C-alpha cells in the first residue's frame, strides 16, 4: 500500500477527505496533535489542513488501528519513542514516564507518522563520487527528517546490485527487504540491536559492507568499533548538519579521530529541494 494511503487508513474517516487532495505533494510526514487539525510535512515545512481538531481519543484510536488494538506488541519500540508498521514509522509524544527499561506513556499528545519513500537512484551521482576509487566507509549526515534512511536504502541497493555483499542491520524495521529494493546481494538481519546484528552478520554472512541506520547511542558506537578493523566496510547514518556538528559530540569525535569514516554524504535542504554533497572526513 502507498505510504500516504496507509497513513490515511489509520485515521478516523472524518479527517480523510481533507487530507486526500494533498497526495499530489508527496508528503513525508503526517503530524497529529491534540487540539489541532492534522498537518502534513512536505517541501521542508509543515502545512495544517482544514479539518476538525484532534482529540486524545483520536490519537489512541490511531495507535490502536496501527497495532491492531495491541499496543503491547509495539511496547518495546515505543519505549524508545517510536514504532514501525510497514512503510510507516510512528513517533509518539505525551506524558511519559522514564523507567529503567525505557519510556512508557500514560497520556498521548501528539503522533508523527513518517511516510517512508523509495527514491531509486537518488544517490546515483553521489555513489559515483563516493566509490569511484573503491569503497570507503561512509557516513550519511542530515538533520532529523532529512532523508538519510531513504539515501541509505539507495546506497545499499547500488552497492548490492553492483555485486558487493551488503549485510544490513534493520533495527527499526525501516530497511525491510520485503518492502524496499535493497539489491541482489544484500542480507538483512532485523529484530536485533546493532552490536548483536553486526556480530551475527560477521560470523555467518561474510559481508563486504555492513549498513546500519542512525548511529547515535553508545551501544551503536560500540557496534561500529566492533565492525571497524574486521576488514568489512561500513555505511551508516547519523543526525548532524555536517562534519562540524559531529565533532561536537564525544562519541563521534572518537570515531573521526580513529578515521573510521573517510567520507560523508551530507543531505541539505536548498530552496525546498534536497542536495547531496560528498565531503572528506578528517579527525
Amino acid at each position, binding site marked *: 500500500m502507498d505510504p500516504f494511503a496507509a497513513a490515511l487508513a489509520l485515521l478516523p474517516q472524518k479527517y480523510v477527505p481533507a487530507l486526500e487532495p494533498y497526495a499530489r505533494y508527496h508528503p513525508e510526514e503526517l503530524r497529529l496533535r491534540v487540539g489541532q487539525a492534522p498537518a502534513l510535512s512536505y517541501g521542508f515545512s509543515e502545512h495544517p489542513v482544514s479539518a476538525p481538531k484532534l482529540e486524545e481519543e483520536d490519537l489512541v*484510536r490511531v495507535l490502536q488501528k496501527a497495532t*491492531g*488494538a495491541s499496543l503491547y506488541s509495539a*511496547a518495546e519500540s515505543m519505549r524508545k519513542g517510536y514504532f514501525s508498521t510497514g512503510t510507516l514509522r510512528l513517533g509518539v509524544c505525551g506524558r511519559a514516564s522514564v523507567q529503567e527499561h525505557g519510556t*512508557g506513556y500514560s497520556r498521548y499528545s501528539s503522533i508523527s507518522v513518517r511516510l517512508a519513500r523509495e527514491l531509486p537512484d537518488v544517490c546515483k551521482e553521489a555513489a559515483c563520487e563516493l566509490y569511484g576509487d573503491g569503497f570507503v566507509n561512509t557516513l550519511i549526515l542530515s538533520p532529523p527528517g532529512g532523508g538519510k534512511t531513504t539515501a541509505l536504502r539507495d546506497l545499499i541497493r547500488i552497492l548490492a546490485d553492483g555485486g558487493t555483499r551488503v549485510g544490513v542491520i534493520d533495527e527499526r524495521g525501516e530497511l525491510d527487504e520485503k518492502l524496499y529494493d535493497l539489491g541482489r546481494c544484500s542480507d538483512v538481519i532485523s529484530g536485533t540491536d546493532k552490536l548483536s546484528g553486526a556480530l551475527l552478520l560477521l560470523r555467518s554472512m561474510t559481508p563486504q559492507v555492513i549498513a546500519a541506520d542512525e548511529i547515535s547511542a553508545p551501544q551503536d558506537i560500540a557496534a561500529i568499533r566492533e565492525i571497524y578493523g574486521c576488514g568489512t566496510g561500513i555505511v551508516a547514518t547519523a543526525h548532524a548538519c555536517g562534519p562540524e556538528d559531529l565533532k561536537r559530540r564525544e562519541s563521534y569525535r572518537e570515531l573521526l579521530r580513529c578515521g573510521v569514516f573517510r567520507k560523508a554524504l551530507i543531505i541539505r535542504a536548498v530552496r525546498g529541494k534536497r542536495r547531496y554533497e560528498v565531503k572528506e572526513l578528517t579527525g
Partner: protein
Amino acid sequence: MKLVGAAAILLGSLLAALTQLNAEKTREETRRALRRSLILLRNELYERQTILPEAFPGLAGASGCEAAQGFYVFLSEEMRQLGERSFSTIWRDCAGKKLAMLDEEDTEAIASLGTTLGGSELELQCAALEKCADTLERKSAQCAAERAEKRRMTLGVTLSLGAFVIILLI
C-alpha cells in the same frame, strides 16, 4: 377431557422446567468455554505477544461452544471498524450481543475486559484476563452447588403445581 387438560398443563410445566434447566446448562457451558478461552488468550499474550486480531480466530476454533465461538467470530468481523470505534466499545458491544444468555454479572465481567485489553502493559492485561477467568470459575462453582437444589425444587414445584391443577380439574 379434564384429564387430558390436566396432563397437558402438567406436561407444559415440566417442559418449562426442563427449558429453564437447559438454559442454565447452556450458560454453564458458555461460561466454561469463555473461561478456557481467556486462559488461552492470556497465554498467547504472555508467551508470544500475539496481536489480538490474530488471536481471535484461533480462540473461536478452540472454544468448543457455539456461543463462545460466535462471540469471537463476531468480534473478528467487528474489528474492521477499529479506528472509527475504540477497541473497548467494539469488545463491549460484541459481548452484549453474543453473550446475552449469560447473566448480568458474567457479561459485565467479560465486557469490562475491553478497557484493559490491547493496552501497552502486558502484565496488566494478563492479570485482568486471569481475574475474569477466576470470576467465571467462581460463578461456575456457585452454580454447581445451587444446581442440584434448584433441580429438585424446580421439579418439585412443577409436579406439585401439576398435581394441584389435576385435583382442581377432577
